[in-house]
């Protein structure tokens, strides 16, 4: 057991993975000497050498595309995308190649790649540094899309992602990099591709992931003070989506609020709402309420507080669910 920030937990998880498999390589912009702009890879080039921690040219398509070739050669590349919106130059490689090669080759070729993407807002950054593009990847079959919300999960999920023979897009909630928490380095206790119920409750289910899980914990407390019992679930895996865990909860509570930073329009909340409504139609006391980003570009940082779902907006979502 150790108290670690999520950043340090990721670093420790990467180190562990590199120690246990010499085929694991890290690739990315500024991840070597600098240790990455968020220092997630700090010290790793020093300890594992320039052959295992590669500072790459400034080209996301290049990072992912050469990662595909390295995979074909038997390596397990862990590619860092510096900020969320900078994944788009690599979108073609990810959705037409990384996602599809296993299927294309009738299972002969595996792409055990991990694409690490710090995502989301709330740190006062300029444009393109605060986006939540997870739905754009989850829509494509062939990619696993996951996101840890705690240091413990970060430590374990990054290792499981690297060990997975399928490509994993790994979204790191960047404004929680400095969040501290207990990390049990002995055992994970969880399945990476399943949701976890973080808090049991009876009146309404709150489903979220990434940075908003911390906010969700505050919501649980604030709601309890108002006499509302909230069941909080961290989906952890965006694709595949653990609908069973969500449905079981909603059958119990009868109400569901989904919160994420990505725009609600075609965001994961839409899929969860559609799926859970189909599964739990007769249990729902209220329509699924979505709390998310607006259908606008991500605003300048002085306005991001008004854009990002926060305790108040989620509480409001809960009220709307309870109003039925």
């Amino acid at each position: 057991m150790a108290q670690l920030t999520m950043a340090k937990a990721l670093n420790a998880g990467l180190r562990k993975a590199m120690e246990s498999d010499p085929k694991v390589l890290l690739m990315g912009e500024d991840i070597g000497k600098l240790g990455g702009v968020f220092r997630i890879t700090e010290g790793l080039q020093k300890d594992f050498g320039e052959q295992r921690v590669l500072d790459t040219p400034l080209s996301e398509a290049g990072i992912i595309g050469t990662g595909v070739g390295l995979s074909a050669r038997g390596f397990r590349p862990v590619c860092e995308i510096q900020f969320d919106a900078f994944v788009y130059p690599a979108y073609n490689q990810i959705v037409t190649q990384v996602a599809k090669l296993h299927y294309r080759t009738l299972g002969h070729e595996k792409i055990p790649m991990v694409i690490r993407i710090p995502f989301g807002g709330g740190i006062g950054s300029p444009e393109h540094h605060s986006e939540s593009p997870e739905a754009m990847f989850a829509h494509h079959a062939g990619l696993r899309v996951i996101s840890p919300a705690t240091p413990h999960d970060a430590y374990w999920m990054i290792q499981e992602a690297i060990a997975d023979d399928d490509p994993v897009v790994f979204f790191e909630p960047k404004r929680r990099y400095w969040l501290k928490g207990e990390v049990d380095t002995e055992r994970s206790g969880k399945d990476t591709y399943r949701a976890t119920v973080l808090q049991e409750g009876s009146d309404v289910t709150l489903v979220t992931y990434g940075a908003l899980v911390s906010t969700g914990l505050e919501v649980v407390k604030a709601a309890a003070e108002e006499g509302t019992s909230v069941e909080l679930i961290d989906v952890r895996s965006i694709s595949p989506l653990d609908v069973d865990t969500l449905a079981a909860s909603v059958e119990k509570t009868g109400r569901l609020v989904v919160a994420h930073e990505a725009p609600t329009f075609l965001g994961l909340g839409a899929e969860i709402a559609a799926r859970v409504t189909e599964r739990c139609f007769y249990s729902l006391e209220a329509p699924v309420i979505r709390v998310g980003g607006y259908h606008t570009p991500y605003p300048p940082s002085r306005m991001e507080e008004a854009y990002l779902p926060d305790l108040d907006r989620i509480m409001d979502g809960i009220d709307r669910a309870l109003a039925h």
Partner: protein
Amino acid sequence: PATPAGSPAAESGPVLASPGRPLAKPPVRKLAKDHGVDLARVPATGSRGEVTREDLLAYLDGAGGGGQAGAV
């Protein structure tokens, strides 16, 4: 789960249609709400164990005689 039909008048001794919360599709829930009926007291005959619209109407018939029981 067939349940003995409880009289809607019998305020005590609710009979649950299923072990958990009562099942019903949203418009039936609405109708129940509009009539001030607790769905948990309505015997459910739906194939999924849900209270059907007919179940509710029958319950309301039994309850109000004239059907004005829940008129708001």
